[in-house]
Every structure is written in structure tokens, then in C-alpha cells.
């Protein structure tokens, strides 16, 4: 028996799911994977997938992989949400709905975790990878191999969290796993361990990405681009990566301490032996609040790019935008306590954090006014990205005002843990973050793939999201004020809440249709790509450097490193030159990083390591860890990680692009 425990840890035959919902989800994931494998084998694409994508250090390809994973996780988290909404609409009075209480708890824990860590973070790093290097006129990031490794650590966390569907169970302790509930005594299963290790591994990936992009921005801007000439998206990413560097180590520590409590019998957050559960809540929010700004800042950057491009105007108040980002970056570390005013820190402490929370609304308000003034007297072109932006302005203002309401500690005592809070943060994260990333995908899609997305479906998707959102979350504000708490899987019929919950469920269904249309939009646009080809590389009459190179962007981005004299350099260049330059460009050899199979190997070994930690299969942990170390040593001894693209090859590619550009039909900017 001991022998078996040594090999299998806590694994046994009973770890496979028993309840129908989880089993169904697990089976459909396995089936989907199986079909994908069959398709890949049938079309003989494995080698292509490995050589062109999984091992690629090209940030544009890494970005696409991040976005694919992010969208998949958006669907997974969305399915969780739909099931919860169905339960809440039906589980009233004598009826107990469709889900067991345990499944419901796993669903809300998984929904929050997956949406923040794997959907939002995935889309964010995806977009940063796609455009940031091009926007600063660079050919790559500071550490290309590390960039790919970060992606694979992110993917490893994603795989682990989805494994919990089929093997064992997921946490029932909510998306932030507060102790003492998340301690071994009250959550003896592997659910919390799945939560810890998938976040720990993905979190380390995010930290490394943060460092990587920070160094990229500081060290790799093209000549002439001083800080105050950087595009606003680059500024926003700079703020976001600074926050990652200061916040994610706290998450690493917090998760480690919870792991030590659960696995080594330590007493950081336990009820007895001198542990302090409140310390966990402080630590997790000292990471968690900056995390919200880590997600929203790049979305702010995207909106700034979009509103300037589609209003045909310079961004209004560039300097104040920069200072607003700086202020938000600094202030976001001084408000974390507003997540737990009710825990008794005292009036003075609550007062301080309440005021700091109100203060942070000021720079955010500055940004909103700057965006509106950018549109003022602009020649606005209502393309799809602009729809997302307009939707964002409305929702974000509503959500922001709700946030200021809750920043008043006495009010928060009433609203804490209510559906009002749930409605508030969904307004900020869906209306702010998700709209921003979907707008960003639509905006930069042609740069990566060489054709635009279908405008009509894009608009339909937007309207579904927007109307669905209002239907899903306005009722939650009302329910919250009526006293409905969050994470409720059953309530009394006499409360009269059911109609509002049903409306909210219908809204969630409409959002799901919006997600479906977005995916359909991508599929249909691929099929009809000939109709929407971007010949010039500048489909929107853009302003920044990424539009100055062809679409799809060549793997080296810039044949000749650009020199920047102005903010909006490409816009200025277009305005000043009314003739095509006839001088023959002089190309030089370019040094580019080689692809690496080591990063995916590290990712898969991390899955094995995490799995071993979760199930106490210690030999697997040790084997995986030792192999990771050996692989890193091998990689660090490799002196041939780069190759040279000869000038002739670049000339060939550039000539091809020029020929394509010549075929372009006459411009049709609005």
C-alpha cells in the first residue's frame, strides 16, 4: 500500500468526476482535443505547428497563440457563467435548480480564476506581444527566448486548471481562496492545490513577461523616440509592467505560504497555532488590486490609439494622459484595503483607504475627458473598434461611479459582498478590459494577418455584448441594493428576486451570442479574406509606426530601423511627403533569434511538476524539476541562439511587398 502511495500519491480510481455537468465538460474537452489531433494528423500539420508556431520566438506569433488561448478561456469561463446564471434563474423556493451546491461553488471559483488569469491576462499579453515591439520600432523583445518561455508557463497553468475538470476537483473557495476556508482542514481535497499551482506557474510566466516588456520599452526604442514621443499604448504597458514587477512577487509569496500551510503543516493563515487569516487577505489584495490596473492600463492604451486614429486627430492632452497613467500606477498600491473595509481595521484606516480610492478616480476621470475631447471636432469614422470604444465610455463611467459609491466605508458596509459589488467590477472588467481587448484585436488584426475583419459581424457582436451586458448586470445592481449576496445558489421565492435573475440570465445568453458572433466573424473573415485584403499596410489611416510597415508584418518588422522625429510619426510622415520616394533603400543584414524547442519542453515539465505537487506524487516533482534545471543549463550553454537574415533576402521580401502594394485599389479611407 505504501508502495502504491509512493508512486501515485493521492491519485486513485475515484478521482474521475462523478457529477454529470463536470463529466460532460471533461468529455467534451477530451473529444474536442481528439478531433483537433485527428485533423492535425490528417492534414499533416504537426511539423508545421511545431516549427512555425509552438517553438517560434517571433512576438507576433507568440501574441497570436496568447490570444487563441485567451479566447478559448473566455469561452470556458463564459460557459461557467452561463451555468451559474441558469442555476440562479431556476433555483428558487422549492426548486433547487440544475446544479449541486459543490458544483456551483467550483463554477464561481473557476469562472473568476479563469477569466482574470487566463482570459484577460492571455488577451493582454497577446496584444502587447503583437504590437508593442512594432510600435517602438523594434524587431523583437529584449529576451525572445524568455518571452516564449513565459507563454509556455502561462499555457502550463491553463492546462493544469483545465485538468481539474477531468482529474479530481477544482477549488470551492472562491477565486481568491480566502483562508481559513482554503486551509487543509476545511478544504481537504485537491481543489485548492489545483488553484495554487495553476496560478503559481502562470504567475511566474506573467512576472517574467512583465520584466521582459519593461526592459524592451526602456532599452529598445528606435532612435528619436524619447519617452514623451512614445505611443500611448506603450506608456500604458510601461505602467502595467511596472505594476506586474511590484505586484506579482507578492502573489508568488502568498500562494507559496498557502501551499506551505496545506502541504507542510505550517501556520501562516490557520485559525490556531498563531496563524493570521487576515494577513492572507491583505497580501492577496496587495497583489489583487494592482492586478486590476495591470489589466485595465493596456486597455486604456488601446482606446487612446483607437480614438485618435478614428477621430483623425492627435490624442488630446497627451502629457496629462501620461501623468494620469503614472498617478494610477502609483496610487493603485494604496487602495487595497477597500476590498475588506468590513473586517474591522478601524475608522482611521478605513477612512484613509476610502479617500485614496476616491483620489484614484481623478486621473481616471482625466483620461475619460481627454478621450472625449479627442473626439470633439474630429472627423470620426465609426468603424467597429470605435463602437467598442463608445460602449466602453458609457459603461466605464457607470461602473466608475458605482465604485466611488462603494469607496465610502459606511456605504461599503451595506454593499460589501452583495451583487452590487459583482455588478460594479463586471462593469469595469467587461466594459473596460474585455471591450478594450476585443477592440484591440479588431484594430490590429490586419497588421498580423494581412486582411481586415468583417465589419458587419463585428458590429453585431458589439451590440450583442453591449445589450447583453446591460440586461445581465443592471439587474444585479438592483438585486444588490435589495440585499442579494454574491455566490448565491438558492433563495426564497418570497423575496421576489426571480424575475430580475431571469433577465440577468437572458442577458448572459445574449453576451454568449456576442462571443459566438465574434468567433464567427474571425472564421468568416478568413474565408472571405480576398475581399478585405490590406494591401498598403495602413487600413485605418493610422498614426503610429506599426502602420508604416506592410501587412502582414514581415518577421523582422522593419527592413530598416526607423528614425522618429515626432509623436504620431507615421501620420506626420504621411502629411509631409506627397511623393513616393524614389531613392533605393539600402538594406543591411539583420540578426534575429532562432526558434527554440526548449521553451515548450519547460512548459510541459512545469505541468508535470505542478501535477505532482497537487497530487503529492513527489518523484514526479523531483524528476520534472531536475529535468527543468538540466534543460536550462543546456540552453544557457548554447552560444548559437541567433541567425543572420542576409540583406538580399530582405530585399526580396520587401520587393514582393512593394509589388503587392502596387496592386492595391485606390484608397478608401472614410
Amino acid at each position, binding site marked *: 500500500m505504501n508502495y502504491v502511495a509512493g508512486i501515485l500519491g493521492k491519485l486513485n480510481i475515484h478521482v474521475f468526476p462523478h457529477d454529470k455537468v463536470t463529466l460532460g465538460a471533461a468529455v467534451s474537452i477530451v473529444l474536442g482535443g481528439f478531433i483537433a489531433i485527428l485533423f492535425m494528423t490528417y492534414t499533416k500539420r504537426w511539423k508545421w505547428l511545431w516549427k512555425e508556431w509552438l517553438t517560434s520566438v517571433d512576438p507576433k506569433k507568440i501574441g497570436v497563440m496568447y490570444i487563441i488561448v485567451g479566447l478559448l478561456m473566455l469561452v470556458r469561463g463564459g460557459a461557467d457563467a452561463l451555468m451559474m446564471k441558469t442555476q440562479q434563474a431556476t433555483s428558487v423556493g422549492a426548486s433547487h435548480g440544475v446544479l449541486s451546491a459543490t458544483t456551483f461553488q467550483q463554477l464561481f471559483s473557476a469562472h473568476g480564476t479563469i477569466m482574470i488569469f487566463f482570459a484577460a491576462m492571455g488577451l493582454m499579453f497577446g496584444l502587447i506581444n503583437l504590437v508593442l515591439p512594432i510600435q517602438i520600432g523594434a524587431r523583437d523583445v529584449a529576451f525572445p527566448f524568455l518571452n516564449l518561455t513565459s507563454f509556455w508557463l502561462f499555457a502550463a497553468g491553463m492546462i493544469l486548471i483545465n485538468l481539474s475538470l477531468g482529474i479530481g476537483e477544482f477549488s470551492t473557495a472562491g477565486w481568491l481562496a480566502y483562508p481559513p476556508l482554503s486551509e487543509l482542514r476545511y478544504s481537504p481535497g485537491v481543489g485548492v492545490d489545483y488553484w495554487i499551482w495553476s496560478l503559481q506557474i502562470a504567475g511566474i510566466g506573467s512576472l517574467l513577461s512583465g520584466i521582459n516588456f519593461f526592459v524592451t520599452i526602456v*532599452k529598445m526604442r528606435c532612435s528619436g523616440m524619447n519617452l514623451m514621443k512614445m505611443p500611448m499604448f506603450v506608456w500604458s504597458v510601461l505602467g502595467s509592467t511596472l505594476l506586474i514587477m511590484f505586484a506579482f512577487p507578492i502573489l508568488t509569496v502568498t500562494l507559496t505560504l498557502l501551499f506551505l500551510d496545506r502541504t507542510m503543516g505550517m*501556520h*501562516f493563515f490557520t485559525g*490556531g*497555532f*498563531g496563524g493570521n487569516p487576515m494577513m492572507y487577505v491583505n497580501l492577496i489584495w496587495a497583489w489583487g488590486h494592482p492586478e486590476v490596473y495591470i489589466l485595465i492600463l493596456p486597455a486604456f492604451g488601446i482606446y487612446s490609439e483607437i480614438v485618435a486614429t478614428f477621430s483623425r486627430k492627435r490624442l488630446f492632452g497627451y502629457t496629462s494622459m501620461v501623468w494620469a497613467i503614472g498617478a494610477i500606477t502609483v496610487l493603485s498600491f494604496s487602495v487595497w484595503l477597500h476590498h475588506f473595509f468590513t473586517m474591522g481595521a478601524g475608522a482611521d484606516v478605513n477612512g484613509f483607504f476610502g479617500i485614496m480610492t476616491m483620489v484614484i478616480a481623478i486621473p481616471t476621470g482625466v483620461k475619460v475627458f481627454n478621450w472625449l475631447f479627442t473626439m470633439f471636432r474630429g472627423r470620426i469614422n465609426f468603424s467597429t473598434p470605435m463602437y467598442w470604444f463608445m460602449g466602453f465610455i458609457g459603461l466605464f463611467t457607470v461602473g466608475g461611479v458605482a465604485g466611488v459609491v462603494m469607496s465610502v466605508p459606511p456605504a461599503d458596509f451595506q454593499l460589501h459582498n452583495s451583487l452590487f459589488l459583482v455588478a460594479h467590477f463586471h462593469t469595469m472588467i467587461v466594459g473596460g478590459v474585455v471591450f478594450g481587448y476585443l477592440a484591440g484585436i479588431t484594430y490590429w488584426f490586419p497588421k498580423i494577418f494581412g486582411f481586415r475583419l468583417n465589419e458587419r459581424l463585428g458590429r453585431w457582436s458589439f451590440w450583442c455584448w453591449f445589450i447583453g451586458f446591460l440586461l445581465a448586470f443592471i439587474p444585479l445592481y438592483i438585486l444588490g441594493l435589495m440585499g442579494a449576496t454574491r455566490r448565491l445558489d438558492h433563495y426564497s421565492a418570497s423575496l421576489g428576486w426571480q424575475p430580475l435573475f431571469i433577465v440577468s440570465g437572458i442577458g448572459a445568453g445574449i453576451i454568449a451570442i456576442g462571443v459566438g458572433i465574434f468567433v464567427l466573424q474571425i472564421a468568416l473573415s478568413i474565408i472571405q479574406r480576398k475581399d478585405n485584403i490590406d494591401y498598403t499596410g495602413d487600413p485605418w489611416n493610422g498614426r503610429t509606426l506599426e502602420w508604416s510597415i506592410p501587412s502582414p508584418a514581415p518577421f523582422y518588422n522593419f527592413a530598416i530601423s526607423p528614425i522618429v522625429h515626432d509623436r504620431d510619426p507615421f501620420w506626420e510622415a504621411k502629411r509631409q511627403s506627397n511623393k513616393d520616394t524614389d531613392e533605393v533603400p539600402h538594406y543591411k543584414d539583420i540578426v534575429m533569434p532562432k526558434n527554440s524547442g526548449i521553451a515548450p519542453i519547460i512548459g510541459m515539465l512545469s505541468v508535470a511538476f505542478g501535477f505532482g505537487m497537487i497530487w503529492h506524487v513527489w518523484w514526479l516533482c523531483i524528476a520534472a524539476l531536475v529535468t527543468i*534545471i538540466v534543460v536550462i*543549463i543546456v540552453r*544557457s550553454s548554447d552560444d548559437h541562439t541567433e541567425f543572420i537574415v542576409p540583406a538580399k533576402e530582405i530585399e526580396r521580401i520587401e520587393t514582393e511587398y512593394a509589388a503587392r502594394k502596387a496592386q492595391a485599389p485606390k484608397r478608401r479611407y472614410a
Partner: protein
Amino acid sequence: MSDASTPAASLRLSGTDHEKNSKTVFGFWVYIMTDCVLFASLFATYAVLHHNIFGGPSGQTLFSLPNVLTETLILLTSSFTCGLGILAARANHKNKVLFWFLITFLLGIAFLSLELTEFRHLVITGNSWRRSGFLSAFFTLVGTHGLHISIGLLWLVVLLGKIFSGGLSKNNLRQLTLFSIFWHFLDIIWIFIFTIVYLMGSLGK
């Protein structure tokens, strides 16, 4: 700084190499800052929990200052020899580099064995990390530093192997620079551990 005065120049680094060096070293500094935040969180945790002895022993009864002072002196000396090794690397003396870093390595091993002896003693006398919140925080903070030292030693031994066989190549020199930053950083963290955990703990503050 003109190129001629830097170690890079003595190695006849080309422009791209120089750029790569500056990126890598800057990136490593940024990593060190994040590690600082990590230790800051652990110090904060220790500060919160250090009175929570739950009827068990406090730092005052557990810590042996002479032992810790020895550890401290060993680690400080290893930082000094690490610095001498970097000077030798700048002067391009391969054997001196190997010698000074071997000394650094041995001092690191000595530090680590003293620390492990202390840990072992605590566990044997029934004062393991399971005893109280205070001891959990103590083992985790000091242990995380020890883990960093272990990783540093593993890194160093691999690096010394590479220098022994491949000489002071660009790649090896860059890694040596990074290692020395890492090692000095761990030294600074230890000074804080020595002060906050051991000295203040022994005084019962």
C-alpha cells in the same frame, strides 16, 4: 563611459554584443528588484507573525548569536572573494577567476551547512515549522534565502565548469557578472535577516 575603459572593450565586443550585455544586465537588475519585493513580503509576514509563538519558544530562547555571527562573516567574506573574482575576470586571468570563485563556492557551502545544522537542531528539539506561526515565518524567510543561496551555488558550479573548459568567453563573462550581482544581493538580504530576525529576536524586540 568610453568603450576603452570598460571590460567589454578588452574583450573586443562588437556593437550588438555591447547592446545585448547592457540589456541583459539591466534585465537582471530588474529581476533583482522583483526578488526584493518577494523578500519584502516575507519580511512583512515575519513582522506580523513574530510574536505569535502560541506557547512555544520565542527567538530569544532559540537563536544562538555566535553561530549566526559566524554565518554572517562567512557570507560577507564570500561576497569579498566574489568581488576579487570579478576583478580577476576584468583583468582576464582565467586561473585567478577559477580560484576566487572556488573559494566563494566553498564559503557558500560552509554557510549553507551551518544554516542547515541550525534548522536540523530546531527540528530535532521539537521546534519545527509546525510548532507556531512564528516558526513557520522564521523557517520560510530564512529558508527562502537559503534556497536562493543553493540556486546560486548550483549556478556557480555549472559556470565554473564552463569557464574551466571554455575559458572567459563573452557568454561566460556575462553570466559571471550576473552571478556576482545575485550574490551581493543575497548578502544584503542576509544583513537584513541578521538584523531583524536574529539580533532583534535575541533582544526580544
